């Protein structure tokens, strides 16, 4: 017997029109799902996978360049000394007040500007008691007050010098986005040249940069000869702080600061400033500076 007798109910069920209908609906439903899934797969291929594939060669090349640069800089870092950190600790952000250096610095600046005819009178310099820095409990701030009678240009020079104080290298004077832009250019033009960018520009002492910027620029352009890099470098060098550094530190003031061991300069900030015009090109500048120091251990 083809079909045992006890299979008759199942056979009847299979042959029933309702079972056929259910089977059709199920099969067509699954077919629709499969059609939808395959259309989606083709759409994904066209809209997502192919555009991503086209980006992969550039991404891979960039990753390779970055890995190469990272290895080069690791080697460079292993050979470097901590001289800059020592200078920061000793001169820029010292432990304790170091009032002698602070007063020498302000004295040298005002004397040089007096010599150039930009300052006509300087009041006594008053240094107050240490105050806690509200933003960093490991630091203390010494208020320094003085009044100066000077020319308009002298006022700008004095305030610009205060703004340069505490900056050690070219990278300290650059906004983060400009540094990032230069680093990105090295990836595209000459990844191995990143060491030259660091040594001939970013890590260069700001005083040395002010005096030798043309020679340093020339050295850099040998490593990165493209017009795009030259234009970007020119744009970066026209930034306010680097322009001020070249203008103010390349001449006699830079020499005096170096000879009297006052470079790098103590980190100062203007807390309060008041300018009053006195006529005949003269202004009175009352300024309260903040001289930062690390709190000494008691």
């Amino acid at each position: 017997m083809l079909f045992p007798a006890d299979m008759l109910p199942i056979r009847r069920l299979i042959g029933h029109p309702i079972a056929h209908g259910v089977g059709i609906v199920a099969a067509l439903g699954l077919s629709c799902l499969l059609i939808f899934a395959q259309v989606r797969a083709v759409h994904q291929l066209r809209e997502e996978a192919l555009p991503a594939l086209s980006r992969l060669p550039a991404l891979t090349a960039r990753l390779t360049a970055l890995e190469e640069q990272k290895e080069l800089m690791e080697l460079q870092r292993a050979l470097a000394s901590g001289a800059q950190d020592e200078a920061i600790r000793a001169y820029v952000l010292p432990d304790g007040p170091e009032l002698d250096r602070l007063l020498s610095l302000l004295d040298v600046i005002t004397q040089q500007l007096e010599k150039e005819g930009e300052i006509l009178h300087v009041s006594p310099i008053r240094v107050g008691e240490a105050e806690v820095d509200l933003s960093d409990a490991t630091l203390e701030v010494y208020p320094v007050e003085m009044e100066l009678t000077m020319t308009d240009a002298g006022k700008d020079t004095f305030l610009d010098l205060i703004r340069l104080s505490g900056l050690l290298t070219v990278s300290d004077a650059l906004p983060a986005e400009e540094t990032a832009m230069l680093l990105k250019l090295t990836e595209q033009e000459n990844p191995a040249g990143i060491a030259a960018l660091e040594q001939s520009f970013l890590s260069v002492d700001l005083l040395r940069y002010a005096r030798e910027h043309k020679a340093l620029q020339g050295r850099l352009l040998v490593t990165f000869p493209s017009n795009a890099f030259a234009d970007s470098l020119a744009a970066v060098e026209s930034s306010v702080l680097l322009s001020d550094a070249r203008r103010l530190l390349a001449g006699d003031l830079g020499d005096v600061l170096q000879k009297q061991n006052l470079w790098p300069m103590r980190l100062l900030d203007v807390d309060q400033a008041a300018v009053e015009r006195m006529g005949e090109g003269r202004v009175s500048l009352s300024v309260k500076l903040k001289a930062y120091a690390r709190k000494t251990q008691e």
Partner: protein
Amino acid sequence: MTDIQTSTVPAPLPHAVRKMLPSLLLFSVVLLGLLTLCWALVLPRYTSLELDGSMLPAAQVPVYAYELESKIELAEAARDALTLPPRDETYIALRDRVRAHVSLADIEADIASMLSKTDYGQFVVITAMRMTGGKVELEGDVRHAGPRSMTLLATFVDELAAQPFVTELVPPAFTREDDPKIGPHSPFVIRFNVVSR
């Protein structure tokens, strides 16, 4: 007269449908089978992409690109950290904080630049400027403008308030006074806050 049933008379609809069902079921099952074969065998062959000598399903390619971008970010950060001179974090944080402060000289220059582009700038004389933290006080007067001095002062205040570096400007009292040396003039004291850069 009797009704004669012949084979040409169509069966009632339910019976016709009942006859079609097995064929339709067979068609649906065959369609499902073919689509399944297509999904399992044909589609992967045409939607896999070659990458570095191996075939990657299309869905994996954007994931691979995303992972590559993440590796690039990490490598870039590591490279940048090694390229710039190592410094203690206290100094870096303080340097960035101080560098973000706006200088009095910058504010003066910005105001002078703004006035140079107006036709009334020559009448605005700033005699004093005070700055404490981010708060600025500007003192001066509008002079040699005759009866227009107050109007010009109002224009100056409006334009100053619209500058991107100015916020929370407190307008001055508007008045006109007579001075034996400079004639009618409108003195002002304008206070505002500066936006950090």
